[in-house]
């Protein structure tokens, strides 16, 4: 194996980078919802991380429901059926967040749009605490994973890409798929806001709510749709994370929220491109920080954020207050 100057061989370098991109992909899907909601609604939703947590817990329940009813993957056909069931479980987990987030927006968030930001922060923080307790009531206080398949976790049962044979290092196939899903989500959001009528309406509402209303756009519907969309992507990322056998915990939303803030500050509040670049940067910097100097694990993403704030306060793709 070729040695890099840092005395890390290419296989290790690839795995460290993939670890970072995987984490970045998950972070992007959370942060994109957060940044869209802020860009359109002007609300910094502190409860957003809990949508991610709920998505993870829902996946554990729905996937377990399927796992105990479907034959374990032993051949290409059973593997395909099993994989399809897990994909359905992920999509269902995320889809359940649509009505939940939509209802929260319509009943709790909408009445305070015109209040000072402090009220919004307090209210969404209260929501965060309520959702954490709701998770505890439904799923308990202990970490939860989906049921195992013949003793293997879901992601191990779906380990279909022969990474070692192809690339010379071992890596989870589910993580590779997750990375591609992250990239796909990024491209979808760009297309959606750029090319679709609904996306343009949302952008128009973000830029000038009154003008949008004047041409017949229902800002209430737009806001509900955007909030539900944010909930969907947060839940989607939580579900995908859970497929990788990462235990779902009632507290997982807190860390995700903090890192999502780091991502959107780096990328620029309201910027989808910025969220994507920021998330990948945070993930890769985090991963390489551990590889090179493990004590810097927690500090590295924040150091990157401070650096960006000093050099480019508006973020890498600054689009504060609108979707870009």
């Amino acid at each position, binding site marked *: 194996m070729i040695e890099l100057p840092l005395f*890390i*061989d290419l296989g*290790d370098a690839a*795995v*460290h980078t993939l*670890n*970072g991109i*995987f*984490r970045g992909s998950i972070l992007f899907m959370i942060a994109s919802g957060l940044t869209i909601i802020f860009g359109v609604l002007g609300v910094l939703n502190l409860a957003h991380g809990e949508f991610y947590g709920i998505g993870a817990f829902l996946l554990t329940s729905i996937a377990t429901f399927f796992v105990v009813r479907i034959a374990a993957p032993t051949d290409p056909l059973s593997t395909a059926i099993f994989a399809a069931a897990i994909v359905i479980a992920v999509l269902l987990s995320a889809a359940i967040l649509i009505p939940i987030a939509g209802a929260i927006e319509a009943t709790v968030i909408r009445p305070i749009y015109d209040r000072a930001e402090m009220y919004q922060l307090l209210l969404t923080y209260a929501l965060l605490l309520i959702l954490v307790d709701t998770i*505890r009531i439904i799923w308990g*206080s*202990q*970490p939860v*994973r989906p049921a*195992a398949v013949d*003793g*293997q*976790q879901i*992601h*191990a049962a779906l*380990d279909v890409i022969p990474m070692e044979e192809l690339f010379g290092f*071992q*890596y*989870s196939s589910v*993580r590779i798929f997750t990375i591609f899903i992250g990239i796909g989500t990024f491209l979808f959001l760009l297309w959606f806001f750029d090319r679709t009528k609904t996306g343009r309406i949302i952008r128009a509402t973000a830029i000038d709510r009154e003008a949008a209303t004047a041409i017949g756009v229902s800002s209430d519907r737009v806001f509900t749709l955007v909030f539900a969309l944010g909930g969907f992507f947060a839940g989607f990322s939580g579900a995908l*994370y859970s497929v990788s*056998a*990462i*235990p779902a*915990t*009632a*507290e*997982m939303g807190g*860390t*995700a929220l903090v890192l999502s803030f780091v991502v959107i500050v780096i990328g620029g509040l309201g910027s989808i491109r910025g969220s994507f670049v920021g998330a990948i940067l945070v993930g890769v910097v*985090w*991963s390489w920080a*551990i*590889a090179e100097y*493990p*004590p810097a*694990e*927690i500090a590295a993403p924040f150091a990157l954020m401070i650096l960006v704030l000093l050099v480019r306060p508006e973020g890498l793709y600054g689009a504060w207050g609108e979707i870009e």
Partner: protein
Amino acid sequence: MDKPDTQTEEGRADSNGIGNIGRRGMLKAAGGTALAIALAGCSDVLLGDDEEVVDVADVPDEPVEAGLQTFTEGPASVLGLQAQFGAEEAVRRINDAGGVAGREIELDVVEEGDSWIENYSRFVDDGKEVTFGPISSGGHLDLVGEVEAQGVVNIATDGTVTRMFEEELDDPTYAFRFQNHDVMEAASAALTAIEQLGADEIDTYANINPDYAFGQDEREIFNATIEQLTDAEEVYSGFPELATDDMSTHVTSVVSEEPDVLFTSCWGGDATLLLSQGQDQGMMDATDIIVGPVLYGSANDFSSGDIEGNIWSGSRNFYWDFPDSDRWSPGRELFDAAQEAEDTIPTAHYMSGYGAVTCWATAVEGLVDMLGGWPEQEQIAAALEGHGFYTPAGYHVMAEDHQCYSNAHFGRLTWNDEMDIPVIEEMTIRDPREVSPPPGEISVEWIESWS
């Protein structure tokens, strides 16, 4: 000093630790009623049938109010709930057998959170006669000063940082700790790795430990032990955040270094995550052995795929199936009780709660017998020093330094297909004298004196 010999499964089954067993306790044990001695009814435990029970007029009528602070929520509840279940089982058994000198125990359980001092103070204000907990190592360090100031006996269920009674609080009165301290399990981990691989075969080792007092303490002692007994050097040390959601990069680093030994004191969800992500990246193939003092604490969460490979786990001062049921039924009976009551595999933290309650109850029972009345806190504290007692884990002695000494368990983590649960096989138990210094000595200095 030379290391004392290790007890093995073929060795002593009654697992005597240090200290002296009292006459009646010994007679009871010899008579095969160890379980009754351990749990039940302290009157029956400490008094023979022909001995008079203390005059009830000298003992209050009301129940003993006891408080337990433990983690009932959050990631640490993996440990905290076990301690709660164990404490409640001990209380249940003691009350069923007539209580402590006729007084039943009422146990009030509160969430530990990060309110160790506030919880303890509230217990004291509420008139609790004894307090148990906490689980947190950092919390225990914070708490002990307050316990000494307020003077109501506290027996920590966990909070096992070694320096606690060696450096932070070297002359305690009211603060005690039941569970084995870190030196016992970290040293056991190093000794296990050496026994399995051979000292000459260990050139490198790596660490992945949680980033707080416990993880740092465990690493320091493991490193001191393995470097004292081999020429190995540390090639990686990672401290993932407690309750992290991703260990993959630490795993990648370990896989890259291919150490002979990986030591990890990760517990709860962190242990599950580490082993699961380790399986993904071939960590078990990249290392010759993985030793983890508290891996079995996640027994209720593992799937069989998580623990494939040469993985060895400690189980502190209790493993439910050692000695095996043919020779020592109390452990299996406790397993059955935990399964029935909470549908859980009782881990060492179950014993943390169980033993703390039993320690206090058996000491007070004997004291009432001696004094002819209910003792004061100072008298209870004095009686706890040197107090020996049985639990289903065997025999324990609360030493003069207020650290309880029990055997240390370590064995191969594997899956039992018949029971469909993780178990520990090839168990080795170590006399506490083998893996912890005499009271008054500093652990790391003591290890560095080994030849």
